[in-house]
């Protein structure tokens, strides 16, 4: 037997397609490649290493080998319910960079640094300086009011009847069309953002504006892009008679991510937002040194080579 192929390495997030949805199939590995096999036995290769995150819809079964391969190529698997209501997620190992996790935790625990990060997020999100001398809680309040106004304004712009952002997780079909569109759209954004947060070597749970949720930091980062990318898409679809709104929303979200170059911007932006905290970045030496040296990878710093 000849020598084995070179090791599999994750590619940088910015080189990849944003999201890919699969439903009703068996995901497996064939000749080392990621395949989706449907009920009729049709095989479809999925270039899993070229996708930032793979969204698994109901009816998907995943083999052990497929999960292992997704992990090796640094692709996030996200289990989503009907219309993108998230159920569970795993697939890309996170937390590979102790230095970055400690840095992020230090920023979040230092009240002064945390406020600076929150202010930077506010600045990026609304394109203007946040009011002076406000606490994180006060800024959160201001943000909430602005967000409600933006929903209202966009709804009007696209001719959508809008009441409020609400949905009942227990009773999905009760949600109105605009809310369903928004949920499907934000699911796409959260998937890509979580993949980027992990790839950049940070913890999804350690948030600055949001806290106490497994994806707090993902929500913080995603909010910066939300009104620029997915919300207009959701309202545009909600304002038109479309047969399958969720499907339409996610395809347009993908176009929007491409148009706004989201995948290229997101990791550098995360770094800038954390830099605003004003704490020195940790020296990588001495913190991540392992018993044996790690291979240099092609991927982002949070990817395990």
């Amino acid at each position, binding site marked *: 037997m000849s020598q084995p*192929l070179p090791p599999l390495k994750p590619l940088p997030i910015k080189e990849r397609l944003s999201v890919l949805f699969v439903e009703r199939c068996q995901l497996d590995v064939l000749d*080392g*490649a990621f395949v989706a096999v449907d009920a009729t036995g049709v095989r479809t290769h999925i270039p899993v290493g*070229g996708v930032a995150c793979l969204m698994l819809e109901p009816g998907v079964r995943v083999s052990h080998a497929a999960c292992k391969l997704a992990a090796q190529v640094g692709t996030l698997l996200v289990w989503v319910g009907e219309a993108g209501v998230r159920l569970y997620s795993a697939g890309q190992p996170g937390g590979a960079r102790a230095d970055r996790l400690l840095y992020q935790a230090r920023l979040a625990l230092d009240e002064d640094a945390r406020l600076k990060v929150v202010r930077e997020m506010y600045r990026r999100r609304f394109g203007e300086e946040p009011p002076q001398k406000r606490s994180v809680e006060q800024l959160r309040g201001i943000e909430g009011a602005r967000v409600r106004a933006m929903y209202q304004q966009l709804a009007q712009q696209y001719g959508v009847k809008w009441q409020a952002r609400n949905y009942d997780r227990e009773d999905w079909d009760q949600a109105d069309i605009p809310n369903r569109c928004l949920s499907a759209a934000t699911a796409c954004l959260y998937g890509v953002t979580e993949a980027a947060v992990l790839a950049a070597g940070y913890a999804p749970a350690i948030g600055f504006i949001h806290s106490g949720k497994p994806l707090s930091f993902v929500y913080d980062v995603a909010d910066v892009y939300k009104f620029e990318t997915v919300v207009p898409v959701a309202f545009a679809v909600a304002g038109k008679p479309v047969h399958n709104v969720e499907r339409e929303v996610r395809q347009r979200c993908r176009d929007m991510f491409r148009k706004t170059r989201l995948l290229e911007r997101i990791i550098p932006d995360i770094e800038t937002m954390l830099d605003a905290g004003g704490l020195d970045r940790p020296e990588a030496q001495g913190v991540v040194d392992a018993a044996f040296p790690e291979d240099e990878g092609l991927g982002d710093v949070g990817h395990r080579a």
Partner: protein
Amino acid sequence: MLVIVLENAPPRLRGRMAIWLLEIRAGVYVGAYNRKIRDYLWQQVEEGLEDGNAVMAWQAAAEAGFDFVTLGANRRVPAEFDGAKLVSFLPPAVSEEAGE
């Protein structure tokens, strides 16, 4: 834009290519990646090709707008013509000597 064509390649290499590229016809893979990743993919081809042969073409700043590299024995060989890179098609006898 990036195209890799594999002929007579072992299944594990074909599977490996499908991890990043789309196999649009048997042994024909397409994708869009930067130089670093192209080199990484070609390294996989080099190490996994065994007795097969391969060609990779990509969009480049060259006058033709693209460039390509080959590996393994094939009747089609790259040929330099007055600074331009073309392909010569060898007659059968020559290619047999070349080990086909």
